[in-house]
């Protein structure tokens, strides 16, 4: 079983050289810490920044410079600032290569639910509906099951949707799974020490197991 850092570390391996990436709140934010040295990546923050850098030191803190999670941040050399319209413009024009975000549920055809639990507090979709409607490649970082032990990889989402047929890959504490174009969770990798059977039990949607499933590698 992976911890959050290890999930982030495994997702970092998915990032292509010379790509523009949008990181959601939570585990996705941690991915930035594990980008290999030989990979050039430019992070977009949808509140209006391309070229997001690390968190600031105490003396660098600027209240006018935050990320989409409202955290104080810095800019990389070569960064560019813009307004919210241009930010979502470049998202909808598919100029962002990869979006990594969390989810409450993912269905076997790639639908995602991550913004609302009816009857409980509704915080809103923020930029998530825009991102999932347009991203070329979407990777979900999440726990395989919820706090009640129920699978979050479902035949069909039960919560209000954020977007449809958009998720391409899921990385959880148990496994790396891709979503096939025709539907279905294809098991690609197991977390170290986790059996296929454990993953099967934690996956309510259609799990496709094809041959030997290797353990994840992290280097």
């Amino acid at each position, binding site marked *: 079983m992976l911890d959050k850092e290890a999930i982030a570390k495994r997702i970092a391996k998915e990032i292509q050289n010379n790509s523009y990436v949008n990181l959601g709140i939570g585990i996705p934010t941690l991915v930035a810490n594990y980008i290999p040295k030989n990979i050039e990546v430019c992070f977009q*923050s*949808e*509140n*209006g*920044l391309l070229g997001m850098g*690390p*968190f*600031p*030191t*105490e003396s660098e*803190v*600027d*209240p*006018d*410079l*935050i*990320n989409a*999670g*409202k*955290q*104080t*941040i810095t*800019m990389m050399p070569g960064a560019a*600032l*813009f*307004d*919210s*319209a241009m*930010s*979502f413009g470049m*998202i*909808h024009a598919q100029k962002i290569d990869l979006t990594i975000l969390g989810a409450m549920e993912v269905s076997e055809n790639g*639908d995602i639910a991550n913004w609302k639990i009816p009857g409980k*507090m*509704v*915080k*809103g*979709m*923020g*930029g*998530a*509906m*825009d991102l999932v*409607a*347009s991203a070329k490649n979407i990777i979900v970082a999440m726990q395989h099951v919820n706090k009640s032990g129920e699978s979050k990889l479902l035949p069909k989402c039960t919560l*209000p*949707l*954020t*977007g*449809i*047929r958009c998720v391409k890959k899921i990385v959880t504490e148990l496994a790396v799974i891709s979503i096939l174009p025709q539907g279905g969770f294809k098991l690609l990798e197991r977390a170290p020490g986790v059996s296929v059977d454990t993953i099967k039990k934690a996956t309510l949607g259609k799990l496709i197991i094809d041959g030997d499933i290797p353990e994840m590698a992290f280097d």
Partner: protein
Amino acid sequence: MINKKFASAEEAIADIQDGDTLLMGGFGLCGIPENCIEALVKKGVKNLTCISNNAGVDNFGIGLMLHQKQVKKMISSYVGENAEFERQLLSGELDVELIPQGTLAFRCMAAGYGMPAIFTPAGIGTEVAFGKEIRNFNGKDYLLEQAFESNFAIVKAWKGDTAGNLIFKATSRNFNTVMAMAGKITIAEVEELVEPGELDPNQIHTPGVYVHRIFQGSHYEKRIEKKTIRE
């Protein structure tokens, strides 16, 4: 050059009435019109509809207006981090319409560009699409979303001149530019108000034609929502 200078926040918002709809710039607490919010709280106008990406926090930003029960309806993309907001929402005192963040930005921009409506893929297949026109272009579905126009837009810039030209700093630009374009009357508060000719025309983010009133703000707190530092 046309002079749009106002003396104070109080003067600039003097004609905002109960029941008005206000576009309010900012993302989280970043780039919010602190002085105008303070003046609106002091003035006590009620039954407002606020179109703003967020609703502030309990005791800052639009949260201050919520605390005074001045807001009847919020149109936002994300409204977390606010306990009083949650209480009013659950008790039915507050009406909330949630819309995707890009849709909010585009609907404001559309108003500023004279476009009556725009197409966006955001919300397709979700409850956001309920009752809305869907149209397919090149194999992809889009929602038709109407331009947001409002009698008043209230924005906050870093620098401005008396002709109404605005320059924003870092990520405080966010919704301020598009909302400035969408107001029939746009009120801008700035950290530094200068004379025409002092700003580089090439660096202006919002041309003065979109701004109707401008004043020099003061005592900016610029509260940080989530101060995050590295060692």
